[in-house]
């Protein structure tokens, strides 16, 4: 242990601050559980996956179609946004002349702050009619995936950008000394060196994709059904909460909180799986 008294103070200060952060997570989970408890007691967990449909006013609470909607939208958008985002970052650092790289980076930073309602509004007014002209009705899983991709792209692009910036110069010089061409350097030297940052970026963007509410609400059609094609309208769990929370009372309201818990469970499972797969290999 360090012999400087300031270090002791710093450590305890930091621990206090981290405790606050930890407390927030616990508080949110507690809040969700407490609000969801009434309906879990009346209705039981199984019915949330086996009831015939989602019609809370009639007493039907099946969440599965919306669960699939959330999953498909998330997987679709992450699959498209991750390579685009990482390639954008590679572009900024290794392929673009500085006069293009700077404004490009500014553009992406800008886009991370645009409200979801603006994306949703644009999607509703521009994208949905476009898709509707190809294949009615227009509001669909595809619209949701496109809008989500645009929304989460800045997260992965900026995180990747920062991780690539942190790759030590010696690595790059070593690669040049060995005569490696550009893409080989990027793929063989830069990516492995930056993997913890890239990994964090993917986790953060997935979190954003799962939690997005407003934009999805406007472009996905909000019909409670399991989508069987890209052009089918669907409803995600988040859009469900947003649509119905304002008007829900009693068990209906508690059922919406159950869907919030399911969402948290989903991301906890994803994060746990990612942790298990990486098992120290990323942060080693």
């Amino acid at each position, binding site marked *: 242990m360090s012999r400087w008294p300031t270090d002791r103070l710093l450590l305890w200060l930091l621990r206090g601050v981290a405790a606050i952060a930890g407390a927030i997570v616990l508080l949110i989970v507690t809040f969700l559980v407490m609000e969801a408890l009434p309906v879990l007691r009346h209705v039981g967990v199984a019915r949330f996956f086996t009831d015939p449909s989602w019609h809370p006013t009639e007493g039907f609470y099946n969440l599965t179609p919306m669960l699939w909607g959330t999953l498909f939208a998330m997987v679709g958008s992450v699959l498209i946004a991750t390579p685009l985002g990482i390639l954008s970052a590679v572009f900024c650092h290794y392929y673009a002349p500085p006069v293009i790289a700077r404004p490009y980076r500014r553009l992406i930073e800008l886009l991370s702050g645009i409200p979801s309602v603006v994306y949703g509004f644009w999607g*509703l007014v521009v994208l949905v009619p476009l898709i509707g002209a190809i294949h009615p009705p*227009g509001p669909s899983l595809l619209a949701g995936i496109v809008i989500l991709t645009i929304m989460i792209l800045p997260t992965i692009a900026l995180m990747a950008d920062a991780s690539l910036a942190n790759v030590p110069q010696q690595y790059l010089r070593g690669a040049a000394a060995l005569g490696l061409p550009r893409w080989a350097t990027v793929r063989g030297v830069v990516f492995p060196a930056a993997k913890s940052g890239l990994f964090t970026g993917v986790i953060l963007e997935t979190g954003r994709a799962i939690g997005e509410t407003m934009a999805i609400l406007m472009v996905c059609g909000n019909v409670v059904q399991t989508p069987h094609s890209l052009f089918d309208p669907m409803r995600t769990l988040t859009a469900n909460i947003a649509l119905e929370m*304002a*008007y829900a009372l009693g068990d209906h309201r508690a059922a919406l909180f159950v869907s919030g818990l399911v969402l948290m469970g989903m991301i906890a499972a994803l994060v746990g799986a990612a942790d298990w797969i990486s098992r120290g290999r990323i942060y080693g």
Partner: protein
Amino acid sequence: MTKCTTLVVLSMAGLIAASASAGAQSTTGDQLAGKLVITGASTLAPLIAEIGKRFESLHPTVRIDVQSGGSSRGVADARQGLADIGMVSRAMKEDERDLSAFPVARDGVCPILHQKNPVQALTDEQIVAIYTGKITNWKAVGGNDAPITVANKAEGRSTLEVFLHYFKLKNVDIKAQVVIGDNEQGVKTVAGNRNAIGYVSIGTAEYDATHGVPIKLLPVGGVAASTESVRTGAFPLSRPLHLATRPSPSGLAKAFIDYTQSKAVHDLIREQYFVPLAD
């Protein structure tokens, strides 16, 4: 480090100074003063906010805070005392008898189509058939050969309840391709799709139609849809808009509710394309 410390100290001082003032609810004698918190339906929120602003200009020591959150929230908050007044955009239900409700305006609900859709009118039976999925193509009702995109409102919305009540349907029977939340979302969905049908508040639809949005309002039961026909009572699909309080209102709340129901705000109500009641 000194730069940082100064910044932190200054901002803390600023924050403390800023939070030193707070409003308190008080009604003293003739002088109206204090703050009213009003929560509830998002349809009513813009109207009540505008009325509130005019009230504030008449009584400078009063603050009227309007929040949205939905009719059910308005009812719940009024019951629990979290809000002074609740805004409810529908007729009061049986189990809401414990609240005192004061109607402030009326609003109609009508079906809308895209302007370029050749269909000019639909009978009640046709609308029911379209919404329950029995008719799926416009040519069955005299339109183009195109599949119908049905837009329904989300569960719990007052417009949905008015619609279901009039056409004697249940929400489980409706087969929709799109479910919308707010009125404007419905308007934009129909405006972007030539083969869509939806239903929204007449006020919203009339405003948009007269300002260049490519939609048209369909008559119901032979009566043309407009704020005028809602005013005369001829239009069958209409809903009252209420302000509700838990015990009978008194003091500032009563003064505000009286003001809302007075003729002085009829121009504001018409400006928002609702129908004033006192006529």
